[in-house]
């Protein structure tokens, strides 16, 4: 599971460098996210712009990653591709996260 992480103006930005977050890699994703976010800024932006497909296991892993941040910290999602966005909409999980269509849009909003 390739994740690329940087910290910028009080934001931890994690970019997923994979085409898919599915059942085959859901556990691996969850563990890798824990490593990337166990300390650092209160707001984590998960950049999904490279991810073309998630299934319900991938969705569950993203939810688990957000829950592991605890109530004091927040996770925003950026760059959802069409099929990924639809999974969030159908399950209404798009109401639980702040969702931004692009990473730049997320940074502009969250850095103020």
């Amino acid at each position, binding site marked *: 599971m390739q994740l690329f992480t940087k910290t910028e103006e009080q934001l931890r930005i994690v970019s997923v460098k994979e085409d898919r977050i*599915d*059942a085959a890699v859901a556990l691996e994703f969850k563990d890798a996210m824990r490593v990337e976010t166990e300390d650092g800024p209160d707001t984590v932006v998960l950049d999904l712009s490279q991810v073309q497909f998630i299934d*319900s296991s991938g969705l569950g892993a993203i939810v688990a990653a957000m829950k592991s941040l605890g109530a004091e910290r927040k996770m925003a999602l950026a760059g959802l591709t069409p099929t990924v966005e639809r999974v969030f909409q159908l399950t209404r999980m798009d109401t639980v996260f702040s969702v931004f269509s692009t990473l730049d849009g997320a940074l502009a909003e969250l850095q103020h």
Partner: protein
Amino acid sequence: MAHLPPFEISVKCSELAVRDALEQFLHALQPLQLSVEEAGTVELVLAETLNNIVEHAYPDPDTAGDFTVACTHQKDGLHLQITDQGLAMPDGTTPVGQCASVDVDLDDLPEGGFGWFLIQGLAKDVSYQRIGPDNQLTMRLAVAVH
């Protein structure tokens, strides 16, 4: 609209087998030139169905068998028949697939149980039968309708 002859793919069960099967299946649909949304529907429904087979019908990887996806293209969409020789569906029927509520505290947010909800929401005429040693799931995907 191109008409697709019936086809069938068969894969030995494992977690990476689902990726393999999806790739083969979507490749076979290429002549239909599905939109991104239609292809997404097909991939999602089939992924959830096959993940369920890997997880529930063949829980023991050492004895896991094959699954087969047969597809016919008709006027009202793609008709799929998915077959495996694993454990039967509990209760002999498909789960209703209710969506877990997301209006809950952070700690109570669901991390699973979306699979059947997505299948029932995106596929039509979903039906399950146990025939001898076979689990047979049939469904229709209203894509490439003509």
